[in-house]
Each structure stands twice: as structure tokens, then as C-alpha cells.
């Protein structure tokens, strides 16, 4: 590292202070810079931070005052509430279109439900799921998570569609190997044959992600994605 002012010896001296949060300002920035480029100091820091974080559980639990629970949930609800939109006329019973953060949250649902943790998300869905298309995982209270492979007309794998049936339900499209880039139109086809356009998914360098919150995903039969050039990708649930 050109701008690494610290060697391992100097950094090691300060890792404990960093782990407990007792270092500030420029010195902190310098150690962090070294740690970012040094796997052995990074491992040492992670271990020390685990020890420091473990101390926090020693704080005695105290029941909060009455009304705490509803106040805490209300604060979350206020932040989660959709901004008022005027002329939204969703054809599919949809709650609202989530942003990038919610797509990430959904990815967490998927990762946790599949029991693979964060590693799964980083190593991409399709590798671990390609062999298990149309997999359904039952969760508690009638909830489930379903994964379906997204393929080209020729049958090549292009990505994965995840459907989470819950409250609310979610549909997440992850594309990792699209044959062409562009803005794909996403259409849901229900079991009764009705088609519902639900939006677009931007694909660049063959990949893209988009998520939708829906009232239910139980009635979906097929997901169709069409590129501006007419290239079609489909997933059957």
C-alpha cells in the first residue's frame, strides 16, 4: 500500500484500542487503512472485536417502561411507510415498489431462509440454486420461499426468481447471465392466464436485480422478462 503509513508492528499496538473503540481521528484512519490491506491484522482485529462485543451481554437486562414495544414498532413503521403516491393504479395487487435497500433486505430473507448466510449473497444465487430449480422452502405460519430458474428460450440459465409468501409477500429477480443488456419489461402470468406488467428491470453487463412487494405470490404461474430487442427470459414457478 503506497499510502500505508503503518507497518504490522505499529498497527498491532493499536488493534485493541480500535476493537474497543478507544481510538479516534487520524490515528484511527491510519490503522484502518493498514487493516484494510493486511489480512493478518484484519483477522486479529476481528477476534479482538468479538471479545469486546462479548462484554456487552454483561449489561443487566431491564424491562423497559410500558408502551416501549409499540413506540419502537411505531418508529419503524413511520420510516417504512411508503411516501404518498398520487395516481398509482397497480394492476397487480401490489403494495409498493421497493428501492435498493429493500431489495437488499429481501436478499437477506432469501439468504437466511436458505440457511446459507451472507456467503450465499456474495457468491451469487445461481450457482447454488441452479441445480435446485422450483425449490420451495416452507417457513413458519404458512410462509414459504420459492426459487425458480430464469432461462432463455434456448434453455440457458439467466438468473433466478425468488418468491417469498408472507406479510407482505415479495418477488425478487436476480439476473446474472442475460444474453443482452437493456431495460427488461417484467410481466407476471397468473394461474388463470391473466398477465400483469409489474415494471422494468435494468440489466447491465448481463446482470441486474429488482424486487417487488406484492399482496401474494401464490397465484403466479410464470414470470416473463422481455428485453427491448425482444429477447425473452421466462421462469415457471
Amino acid at each position, binding site marked *: 500500500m503506497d499510502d500505508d503509513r503503518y507497518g504490522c508492528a505499529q498497527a498491532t499496538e493499536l488493534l485493541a484500542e480500535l476493537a474497543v473503540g478507544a481510538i479516534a481521528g487520524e490515528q484511527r484512519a491510519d490503522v484502518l487503512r493498514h487493516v484494510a490491506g493486511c489480512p493478518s491484522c484484519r483477522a486479529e482485529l476481528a477476534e479482538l472485536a468479538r471479545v469486546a462485543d462479548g462484554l456487552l451481554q454483561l449489561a443487566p437486562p431491564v424491562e423497559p417502561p410500558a408502551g*416501549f*414495544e409499540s413506540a419502537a414498532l411505531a418508529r419503524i413503521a413511520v420510516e417504512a411507510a411508503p411516501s404518498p403516491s398520487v395516481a398509482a393504479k397497480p394492476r397487480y395487487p401490489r403494495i409498493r415498489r421497493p428501492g435498493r435497500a429493500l431489495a437488499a433486505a429481501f436478499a*437477506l430473507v432469501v439468504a437466511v431462509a436458505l440457511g446459507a448466510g451472507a456467503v450465499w449473497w456474495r457468491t451469487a444465487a445461481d450457482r447454488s440454486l441452479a441445480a435446485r430449480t422450483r425449490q420451495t422452502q416452507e417457513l413458519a405460519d404458512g410462509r414459504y420461499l420459492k426459487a425458480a430458474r430464469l432461462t432463455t428460450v434456448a434453455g440457458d440459465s439467466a438468473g433466478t426468481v425468488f418468491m417469498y409468501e408472507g406479510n407482505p409477500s415479495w418477488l425478487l429477480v436476480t439476473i446474472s447471465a442475460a444474453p443482452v443488456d437493456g431495460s427488461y419489461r417484467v410481466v407476471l402470468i397468473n394461474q388463470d392466464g391473466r398477465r400483469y406488467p409489474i415494471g422494468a428491470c435494468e440489466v447491465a453487463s448481463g446482470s441486474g436485480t429488482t424486487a417487488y412487494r406484492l399482496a401474494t405470490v401464490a397465484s403466479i404461474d410464470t414470470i416473463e422478462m422481455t428485453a427491448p430487442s425482444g429477447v425473452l427470459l421466462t421462469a415457471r414457478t
Partner: protein
Amino acid sequence: MTDEALLAGMAAGDAQAATTLVRRYQARVYGLALTIVGVPATAEDVAQDAFLRAWRFAGGYDPRRGGVATWLLSITRNAAIDAVRMRRDQPYEPELLLAMLDTRSADDGGQERTADADRVRTALRTLPRDQAAAVVMATFYGLTAKEIGAREGVPIGTAKTRIRLGLARLRDKLEVHDG
């Protein structure tokens, strides 16, 4: 439902999951907030803020780095420290803090958690008082080595050494039990 599933449900906007998670952890989150800020009204605000942050950052939770409880408590610590930074004049009493941490509380989180807390508590007890005080003042109050030195009436270098030796010793003690 596991903690991870609850966190994921909450992140996805599932109100029931959020309720269960808050109910499961509110006493520990509020207890930690109160330990740090010392004022019930502020602690309540901090604890609510911690759950809000948990919801907001749930996507960043990495199961490889520890359980949901540890993650939630470190979020709470950060929220509490942010709150007390506004008023640095609050007196910090390391003796009181150490005594609180040394008290075994009534079982509220199952045997596994209690056993882990006991292990940590026992390890902390083996530290010389000065090292223990330096480590917990930094960990709980977010004080820097310079601030700890000033409060304990020792040079900054001494405070740094206490933190380093104290944490290293804690780790050794905990590792012995792990292995």
C-alpha cells in the same frame, strides 16, 4: 423462529417478525442503553433508536461475525454512545460499571446465553482492576485512551497499555475455554 429469520422478516417489512424481535430483546437492549446513558428517558429513546437502526441495517448483518444478539447489542452501544457524546460532562464511574457487569442477572435468555455470559464474566474478573476499568470504559462509554488516562489520572501511554493487555488477557481466558 430463529433470531436470523426474525431479523430477515423485519427487514422485509413483516410487522409480526418485528414485534417478536422487539419483544425478545427489549429488556437486553434497554438494559444496555440504561447502563451506558444512565437516564431512563434517554435510555428509552436510545433503545428505540437501536431497533430502528437494526431494521434499517438488517441487510448488513453478517452471520459469520456473531449472533443477532451480539449484533443488536453493538448497535445499541453505538446508539447510546452517540447520545452521550452530546453531553460529555456526565460523570463516568468505572467502579459502578464493573460492579453492574459482575452481577449475574436473573435468567432471561436461556441456558446457552447464560453460560456464555458467565464465561465472559469470569474472564473479566481475572483482570487487574485498572485493566478491567480501561477496557469497559472504552467498550461501554466509547472513551478514548486519552480520555481514560485523564479520568484515571495516568498518562495516555499507560491507558493504552491497560486496554491492550486487558483485552489480550480476556481473549486468552476465553480461548482456553473454547479449546
